[in-house]
């Protein structure tokens, strides 16, 4: 080969190209069957395209053949980490349609168990977040503390994960005699253990290096994508449904809406840790003041909602869940639509992770706290 040919050959070497890679559906850090189609330039993410449908169970369609009591247990299977809050959303929507006033006792019980659910969800998220970033210790510690909450659920509601404790008009059974004592014991215990979380992970140099200034989401983007929950509030979007549109007993408790303005992974992390403190505050205010009374308002055996449309929103551990029921005065709804927080939060993932590296995508997804069955329904 002559010198001239060599130079021509070097010049015709193809330029670097974009290439595609599948992340999931079996990738462990997607926490379920989420498939992300990544467009990469080397290690830098150019574009993310989420592909859904791997765990679609047509819950909304199944609701159309079930009675209003039967719908409730299906919502357990959407966002299984905040199942009690999902159940509450459906029950509140049905009660709105029936114009049924539930007893004060029910409101307080629902609020306490909702906050316990939120705590247990955040504990699991904290453990899994650490594990995604390579620290398996946090996973075990998170589950250790979560176990005490699942025990409370098991004793009062009868199940550990898919509790199905709400029924339209109230709750299924009255609280267990041990409930108050156990909950108080747990709060005393967890107030000592939560600083341990900070010691283990928050100050850790590897963790902070991997989360600070990663996965930035601006306030405007958060609003336009509808990113709610702790993820939205970490970008400065004050969207706590418990504060803005109080339901159940949230109008009578004092708590702060956690808002950070940084919008990066570390802010989302801090927002959830701070929310755990607030949840404990709410439980402490209510646990000694559960009013006496019935645990369920009287409803007919066959519930028929008057013709019309009903919408109710609640704050789950992930964000705003909306339940929209269209009724045509039959025993099952004409149409049910769930506005799930996970779906909207996922839609912002492309904006957040663009320009970062693949390893940062794992951290970004972790702090979004995605639950795939909630996204897909």
């Amino acid at each position, binding site marked *: 080969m002559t010198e001239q040919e060599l130079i021509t050959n070097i010049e015709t070497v193809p330029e670097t190209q974009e290439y595609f890679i599948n992340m999931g559906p079996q990738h462990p850090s997607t926490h379920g069957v989420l498939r992300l189609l990544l467009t990469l330039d080397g290690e830098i993410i150019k574009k993310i395209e989420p592909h859904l449908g791997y765990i679609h169970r047509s819950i909304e369609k199944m609701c159309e053949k*079930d009675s209003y*009591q*039967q719908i*409730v*247990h*299906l919502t357990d299977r959407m966002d299984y980490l905040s199942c009690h809050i999902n159940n509450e959303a459906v029950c509140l929507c049905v009660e709105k349609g029936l114009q049924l006033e539930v007893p004060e006792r029910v409101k307080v019980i629902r609020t306490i168990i909702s906050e316990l659910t939120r705590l247990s969800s955040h504990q699991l998220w904290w453990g899994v977040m650490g594990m995604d970033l390579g620290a398996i*210790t946090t996973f075990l510690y998170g589950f*250790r503390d979560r*176990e005490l909450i699942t*025990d409370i659920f*098991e*004793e*009062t*509601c*009868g*199940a550990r994960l*898919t509790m*199905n404790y709400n*029924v339209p008009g109230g709750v*299924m*059974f009255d609280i*267990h005699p041990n409930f108050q004592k156990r909950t108080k014991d747990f709060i005393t215990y967890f107030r000592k253990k939560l600083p*341990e979380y900070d*010691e*283990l*992970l928050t*100050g*850790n*140099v*590897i963790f902070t290096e991997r989360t600070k200034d990663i996965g930035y989401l601006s306030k405007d983007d958060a609003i336009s994508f509808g990113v709610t929950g702790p993820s939205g509030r970490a970008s400065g979007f004050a969207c706590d449904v418990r504060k803005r549109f109080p339901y159940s007993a949230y109008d009578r408790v004092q708590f702060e809406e956690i808002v950070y303005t940084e919008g990066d992974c570390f802010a989302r992390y801090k927002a959830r840790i701070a929310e755990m403190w607030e949840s404990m505050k709410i439980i402490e205010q209510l646990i000694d003041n559960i009013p006496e009374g019935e645990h369920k308002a009287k409803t007919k*055996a066959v519930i028929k909602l008057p013709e019309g449309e009903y919408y109710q929103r609640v704050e789950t551990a992930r964000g705003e869940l909306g339940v929209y029921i269209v009724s045509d005065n039959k025993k099952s709804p004409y149409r049910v639509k769930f506005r799930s927080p996970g779906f909207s939060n996922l839609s912002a993932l492309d904006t957040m992770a663009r320009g970062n590296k693949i390893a940062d995508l794992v951290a970004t997804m972790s702090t979004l706290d995605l639950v795939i069955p909630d996204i897909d329904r």
Partner: protein
Amino acid sequence: MSRSADGIYNFMGLKNYISDIYNGVKSLITGMKVTGHYITHPKEIITQQYPENRDTLKMFERFRGEVVLIHDENNQHKCTGCSACELACPNGSIEIISGKETDPETGKSTKIIDTFVYHLSMCTFCNLCILSCPTDAIKMAQDFEHSVFDRSKLTKVLNKPGSKIMPGVK
């Protein structure tokens, strides 16, 4: 240690560099201290040794393991065969096949259950059947070890052979 373009060492950079290392190592040791605490205090570990502790393991009384039909010592139950549980079940895991029984004295025929079929494999343990039962004939048992080698074993007949309805239950 960083060097600026004109060759002068930037000592502020060096100071930051060393303090970064110091803070980083300190944060790692803080984390390790928590882990070390649990190594030296094995009593604070809460792991349960399942299945070794199976004999002492007691589930909570409300725990929903499986649906059972309550029988008393005379092999009598309270199920009238009204099918309220079958209607309340969202997944069709309960099937009631009812029969007729004629009272020899009055000659009246009453509806009784022939077989109470329960498909455990379809059950979501939502407790709606228990709530709907007008005579409290069924309840949730605490047994949770349901794994079997053959799927057909999960279809159970809940009324025991030869069992009868309790007198007086309507």
